[in-house]
């Protein structure tokens, strides 16, 4: 008796595909369908099937972040580099991140009203997880930056005079 390939089931489950659809695949696999047929169905579900909340949510998140980067974060970052005032840029990034998550959650619940509570709980859990991950990454990057700065040789006090010295010598000669 054939069974649905374990990897296929895991992929569909991880992407939030309706368990009834996976059940249909399992049932037809057990009825004697080949592994090729199963994988063809899996590809069909992924590319033609109804979009799962997982995909909608993360797609929205990516789009929002891309728009936010272009419209707000980029200019703020440039200004911060010029003025040395990093706080507004970091606050804007944090607020923007939460706004993007909120928008993604709204889209998920908008398209999946049947499972609103489940989608909201799942989104909240992901927001918490992503926030923790972002904090860890930022902290690690900060620590690496401090270590690199400490290890790098100190720049000369007067770069211009060092650059000009050989030129002046050449001119004198």
């Amino acid at each position, binding site marked *: 008796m054939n069974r649905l390939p374990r990897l296929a089931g895991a992929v569909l489950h991880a992407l939030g595909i*309706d368990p009834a659809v996976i*059940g*249909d695949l399992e049932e037809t696999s057990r009825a004697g369908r080949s592994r090729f047929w199963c994988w063809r*169905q899996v590809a*069909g*579900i992924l590319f033609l099937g109804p979009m799962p909340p997982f995909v909608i949510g993360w797609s929205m998140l990516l789009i929002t972040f891309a728009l936010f980067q272009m419209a707000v974060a980029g200019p703020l970052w440039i200004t911060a580099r010029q003025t040395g005032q990093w706080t507004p840029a970091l606050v804007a990034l944090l607020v923007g991140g939460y706004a993007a998550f909120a928008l993604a959650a709204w889209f998920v619940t908008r398209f999946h009203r049947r499972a609103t509570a489940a989608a909201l709980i799942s989104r909240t859990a992901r927001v918490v997880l992503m926030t923790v991950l972002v904090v860890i990454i930022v902290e690690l990057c900060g620590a690496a930056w401090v270590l690199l700065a400490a290890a790098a040789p100190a720049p000369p006090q007067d770069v211009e005079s060092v650059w000009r010295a050989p030129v002046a010598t050449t001119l004198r000669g």
Partner: protein
Amino acid sequence: MNRQFLTDFELMILLAILRLGDEAYGVPIAKEIEEIGGRTALLGAIYAALERLEHNGLVTSSYGDPTAARGGRAKRYFAVTRKGLKAVKATQRAFTALWSGIPALKGGTT
């Protein structure tokens, strides 16, 4: 939904559900389309169309009990709503009207 008519694939799915009655879920719907409709359809395409039909109020769905034969997963049963039935009839009327009066197709319809 303002759209009254169905695509050929949506019509096939609705007719398959009507034929199957209380046993209309993914697997038999696909089988019905393949065996009687003569068209091979991927489950993904069928479910995408079913989601669209449900969103438009032409079908409703409900979950059954999980079974071991399906790896402990429930069946999702579909039923055609009154609005869906009206859409099927309207589409049939439109097709029949278009069909009639074409000499090349004479005798191809009842």
